[in-house]
């Protein structure tokens, strides 16, 4: 029998140790919350996406940038189904947050005059740069100094509720297996997005845990089928990344198996510097045409270019050296390149106060629906700051405090430790592998088609019904892996069902619905746990209330148009046919 550790009287409980969660915790303290507890299954500041960020922040500089243009670009990257009010707020807040982080000790790249410098990166506006791990080291130190209690190595497995109000969470310790009960007044979910533990080192601890616990507690999730990023692209056979932005910036080019520099055909102006979504989709089209493998060619880089890359990407360049791709400051081999697993963000639906559909539960960073919070560290910080502030305001309201429903803790404890009782069950690795084989192939979620996705849903259901219930764990480490496999299976089901529900091509291409339909589909898809099954429903985007408008028409998606112009596809009966 494992010990039960109960931490009571928490004002604001933050789940997740990245930048969004850390900012929420800092702002909760600033707002007057006396007991703020931040929990991470790894270590606050050393887990998730934030600490591996490639040194890039997208900040709006009020005196240099055009606000409306920046909103337009972000709204477009979300296929115009953005919550534009929140996007605008993030942009407006980002400059102040940047300066605050600078004051708090984050080491940004600066000019000789000591001003924070912006340099060109991918995207239209120049970017702010920071130095890798230092950002999260500084921010988590600030949180500790302000009195945030950080609890590490505890994985959360469920939310405590009273009626529909969230009043805490439970989890277990990865080292000793102790059961943790956190009783909180307000709770903030900041657990990031997920990439199904696929390619992309530094993100395999992001397993949609926040989505899963919120879904099970009855929260509305949204945005599973859309995102501003479809995926990233990485070296295919090594765990090296990220850094593509810098390689293509130095003149790295992509070659397909025929030796063609294919990006010239799809985006003659930007070529390899095209947006991530375009690159991922074009790679998938090339794969469909049998033109794989695809390589990044950097063999023409001069030694001074390689030395420059070593300055900005020391870790990635060390990795390339270790596997013999870089020798004596030259790339001596082509590097096979590939899209990573699809990003999944069935985020918690939020309003402008970062409240979820469950009272007492707040969300920030990539744990929020993608239409509300765009990918990236600046929006993680601004949304974290807001969620921390509003969560703290909630704790000051009367009548919002409650105790968990009797019996709930015991029930969640049994659920949490069940895999430890399964002596003859299935190892988490098997379940993960089975799931990855369904969701990662490019022609399921990167290049979509109804028939293929319906088959994939059936396979996910099969894993859900015939493998997940039998997940077994030998010890608390394996228990974590078991819960991760379970959570990812749920995320896959949500993402796949939402992708099927959206019968158009918007942020991702569908072969059976190649048109972008701004007459019918300026809608979000909301997902909720039903009595028996998952429930999905559309909700109109109130676009008329927003600054950026879009023409209400139905047009062939521009990438399908390009493919048609190139003679790769034709349209038959409103569907795409490959030539």
């Amino acid at each position, binding site marked *: 029998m494992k010990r039960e550790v109960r931490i009571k009287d928490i004002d604001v409980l933050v789940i997740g140790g990245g930048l969004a969660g850390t900012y929420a915790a800092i702002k909760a303290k600033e707002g007057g919350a006396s007991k703020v507890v931040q929990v991470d*299954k*790894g*270590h606050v500041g*050393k*887990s*998730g996406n934030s*600490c*591996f960020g490639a040194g890039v922040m997208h900040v709006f500089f009020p005196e240099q940038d055009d606000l409306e243009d920046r909103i337009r670009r972000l709204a477009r990257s979300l296929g115009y189904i953005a919550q534009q009010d929140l996007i605008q707020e993030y942009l407006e807040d980002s400059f102040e947050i940047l300066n605050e982080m600078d004051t708090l000790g984050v080491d940004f790249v600066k000019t000789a005059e000591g001003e924070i410098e912006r340099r060109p990166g991918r995207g239209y506006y120049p970017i702010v740069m920071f130095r890798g*791990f230092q950002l999260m080291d500084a921010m988590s130190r600030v949180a500790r100094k302000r009195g945030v209690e950080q609890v*590490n*190595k505890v994985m959360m497995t469920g939310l405590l509720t009273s009626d529909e109000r969230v009043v805490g969470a439970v989890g277990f310790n*990865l080292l000793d297996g102790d059961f943790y009960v956190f009783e909180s007044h307000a709770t903030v979910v900041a657990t990031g997005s997920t990439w199904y533990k*696929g*390619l992309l*080192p*530094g*993100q*395999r*601890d992001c397993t949609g845990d926040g989505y899963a616990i919120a879904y099970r507690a009855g929260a509305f999730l949204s945005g599973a089928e859309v995102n501003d990023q479809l995926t990233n692209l990485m070296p*295919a*056979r*090594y*765990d*090296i990344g990220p850094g593509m932005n810098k390689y293509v910036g130095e003149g790295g080019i992509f070659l397909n198996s025929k030796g063609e520099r294919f990006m010239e055909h799809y985006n003659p102006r930007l070529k390899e510097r095209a947006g991530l979504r375009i690159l991922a989709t074009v*790679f*998938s089209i090339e*794969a469909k045409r049998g033109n*794989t493998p695809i390589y990044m060619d950097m063999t023409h880089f001069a030694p001074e270019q390689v030395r420059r890359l070593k300055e900005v990407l020391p*870790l990635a360049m*060390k*990795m390339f050296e*270790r*596997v013999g791709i870089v020798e004596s400051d030259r790339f001596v081999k082509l590097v096979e390149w*590939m*899209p*990573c*697993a699809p990003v999944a963000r069935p985020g918690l639906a939020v309003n402008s106060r970062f409240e979820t559909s469950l009272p007492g539960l707040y969300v920030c960073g990539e744990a929020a629906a993608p239409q509300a919070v765009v990918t990236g560290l600046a929006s993680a910080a601004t949304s974290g700051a807001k969620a921390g502030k509003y969560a703290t305001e909630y704790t000051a309201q009367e009548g919002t405090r409650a105790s968990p429903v009797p019996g709930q803790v015991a029930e969640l404890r049994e659920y949490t430790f069940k895999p430890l009782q399964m002596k003859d069950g299935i190892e988490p*690795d098997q379940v993960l*592998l089975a799931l*990855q*084989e369904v969701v*990662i*192939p*490019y022609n399921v979620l*990167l290049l979509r088609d109804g028939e293929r996705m319906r088959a994939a849903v059936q396979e996910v259901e099969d894993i859900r019904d015939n493998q997940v219930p039998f997940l077994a764990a030998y010890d608390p*480490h394996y228990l*974590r*892996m078991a819960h991760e496999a379970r959570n990812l299976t749920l995320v896959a089901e949500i993402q796949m069902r939402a992708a099927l529900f959206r019968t158009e091509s918007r942020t991702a291409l569908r072969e059976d619905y190649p048109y972008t339909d701004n007459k019918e589909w300026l809608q979000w898809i909301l997902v909720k746990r039903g009595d028996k099954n998952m429930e999905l429903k559309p909700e109109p985007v109130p676009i008329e209330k927003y600054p950026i408008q879009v023409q209400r028409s139905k047009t062939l998606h521009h990438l399908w148009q390009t493919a048609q112009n190139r003679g790769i596809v034709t349209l038959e009966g409103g569907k795409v046919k490959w030539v």
Partner: protein
Amino acid sequence: MGVRRIDVRLCNGCGICIDHCPMDVLRLDHTRMKAYIKYIRDCQSCFLCETECPQGAIYCLPLHERRMVTAW
């Protein structure tokens, strides 16, 4: 192959690598006060342990530790 070596002559048992590993791969041998690689299959080759080890005792390789399912 992710984290491949923790040099027992250099390791001083400080435990930083164990605390900071995002994938919970490492453990401390409390009798010898040495870190060791316990759950290698879950290593994500992020190099955080190698980067943070104050003794320079850890060596990583950026190769997949388990079968990596890829886009094609």
